[in-house]
């Protein structure tokens, strides 16, 4: 019972970012209303400092706060995903908020707090911390989704997201209560021990199922996906880009940690449920995306489908030696999806600005002539979301399917490949519209947006051609964790 059990040193990046967010709330009070982008730049520097801090020390293996938090390669790599999406979304927000006349200083601290919640979620080794971290990342998101108060659909989607989010977290709490009742514990290690002794009781399985409801909602897996299209469409696009990556990655981080450590010995019981989520999400997400005419709704259904592919990667996690492989595949896939998706959303933001109601796929007609750079980047993103070479999305899908094959789920991989072919139809349609059709209207892109598109496009391409080094880093950081 000493203060050193807190391991404050190990959690310094996390503490730094939360302190930065609290500080920013105060500093923002002295920043005049027409210069709120300064708050944005300060948030950006907070993200950047934390990003480099975390990346300088990827290989840690520590515990903090009496074993309730783990600081290891898995959490550190995911921190980079969260912080990266925070950095890119903040860059986009600098101009977006001003152009939509919703620039207010609170936006940036809320984003920082949400990232802190995500970071805690990926470190959590106790169900109560998972629950609190989930709320900590969600509450700012509810507010951010409703941030565009000049548009009614923003507030409505915020209410929808909030009510369904609170509903699913009530299921999650009840699930945690039942797990506590079955194992007398909420810590993953203690639950794992209890499960190893007593095996799976119906009470425990019911608890796991209810808890999974809350997490599957956050990652928008079918059948808990109904909110996704409306919320992605109604929320300010910067927030959508941010939450479609960050919140999803955080949800999967918790799922991986819970199922690979606490319930590892129950793999035979939970694997079929995960397989079900994988099949439903990939099939329904991709099929529903075909008929969408709004690019925002299309990307929303695409994000549902991508949640399904991540579930494909989680399935092998129950097969002893394959857990590390599965966890690496999850991280790599989330990183690839994150880069590509934020890139795609920044193109959406750019086109949206140009045409007013520019979220229709037909608005992309002739983009190649109007703005060749943007069109080339969007082509790359669409290829990557489909999973075609030479992009990072291809490598990530390959990685995921290889993990599932190693566990003997050949049929699941077949389903995956078929759904990829289905998805090619609607992703490639965007490319065709951009390059083949003609349209008019000038696209003006601010410098920060160009930078974001450039960075994500370059990363998607480079990591698609040379995935080796990143893969090696991911695999060595995760080795032996699960």
């Amino acid at each position, binding site marked *: 019972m000493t203060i050193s059990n807190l391991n404050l040193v190990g959690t310094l990046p996390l503490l730094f970012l939360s302190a930065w967010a609290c500080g920013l709330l105060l500093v923002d009070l002295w920043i005049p209303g027409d210069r709120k982008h300064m708050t944005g730049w300060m948030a950006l520097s907070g993200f950047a400092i934390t990003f480099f801090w975390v990346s300088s020390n990827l290989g840690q293996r520590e515990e903090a706060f009496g074993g309730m938090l783990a600081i290891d390669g898995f959490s550190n790599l995911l921190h980079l995903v969260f912080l990266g999406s925070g950095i890119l979304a903040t860059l986009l927000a600098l101009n977006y908020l001003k152009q939509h006349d919703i620039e207010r200083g609170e936006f940036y601290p809320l984003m920082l707090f949400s990232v802190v919640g995500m970071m805690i979620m990926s470190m959590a080794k106790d169900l109560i911390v998972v*629950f609190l971290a989930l709320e900590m990342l969600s509450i700012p998101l509810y507010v951010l989704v409703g941030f565009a108060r000049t548009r*009614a659909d923003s507030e409505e989607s915020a*209410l929808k997201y909030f009510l369904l989010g*609170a509903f699913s977290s009530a299921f999650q709490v*009840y699930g945690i*209560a039942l797990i*506590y*009742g079955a194992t007398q514990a909420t810590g993953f290690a203690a639950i794992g021990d209890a499960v190893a002794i007593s095996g799976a009781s119906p009470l425990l399985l019911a608890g796991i199922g209810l808890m999974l409801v809350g997490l599957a909602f956050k990652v928008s897996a079918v059948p808990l996906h*109904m909110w996704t299209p*409306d919320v992605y469409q109604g929320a300010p696009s910067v927030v959508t880009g941010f939450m479609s990556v960050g919140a999803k990655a955080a949800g999967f981080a918790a799922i991986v940690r819970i199922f690979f450590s606490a319930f590892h010995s129950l793999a035979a019981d939970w694997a079929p449920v995960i397989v079900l989520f994988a099949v439903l999400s990939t099939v329904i997400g991709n099929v529903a995306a075909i008929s969408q005419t709004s690019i925002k709704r299309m990307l929303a259904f695409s994000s549902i489908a991508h949640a399904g592919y991540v579930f494909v990667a989680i399935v092998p996690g129950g097969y002893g030696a394959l857990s590390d492989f599965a966890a690496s595949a999850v991280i790599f896939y989330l990183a690839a999806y994150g880069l590509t998706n934020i890139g795609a959303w920044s193109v959406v933001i750019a086109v949206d600005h140009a045409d007013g109601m520019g979220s229709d796929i037909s608005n992309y007609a002739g983009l190649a002539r109007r703005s060749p750079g943007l069109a080339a980047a969007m082509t790359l993103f669409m290829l990557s979301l489909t999973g075609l070479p030479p992009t990072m999305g291809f490598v990530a899908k390959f990685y995921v399917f290889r993990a599932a094959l190693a566990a003997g789920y050949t049929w699941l991989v077949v389903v995956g490949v078929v759904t990829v072919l289905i998805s090619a139809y609607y992703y490639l349609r965007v490319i065709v519209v951009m390059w083949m059709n003609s349209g008019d209207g000038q696209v003006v892109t601010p410098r920060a947006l160009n930078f974001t598109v450039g960075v994500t496009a370059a990363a998607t391409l480079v990591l698609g051609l040379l995935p080796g080094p990143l893969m090696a880093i991911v695999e060595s950081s995760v080795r032996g964790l699960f």
Partner: protein
Amino acid sequence: MIPTTYYLALSAILFSIGVIGVLVRRNAIVIFMSIELMLNSANLAFVAFAREFGTLDGQLMVFFVMTVAAAEVAVGLALIVAIFRSKASIDVDAVNLLKG
């Protein structure tokens, strides 16, 4: 003494009524109250388990669940009031809650 099962049965009943409220009613505030009922029934289960095991951990969970409920109520009601101001309706059919 009252068996723990009775308490858990009570919590299951309250939880199910809460679920009905969320799925059936159209008014956002009633839906929100139903969610509070669900959280409360989870709390009841936590306290019942805590007594059963003779530990305090379950009661601490209740503490945190209540904090979360307080945070949610603040944000949720702010949202509801904000929407009411701009639309003068908090009927979730107007908000299309369950339509994808």
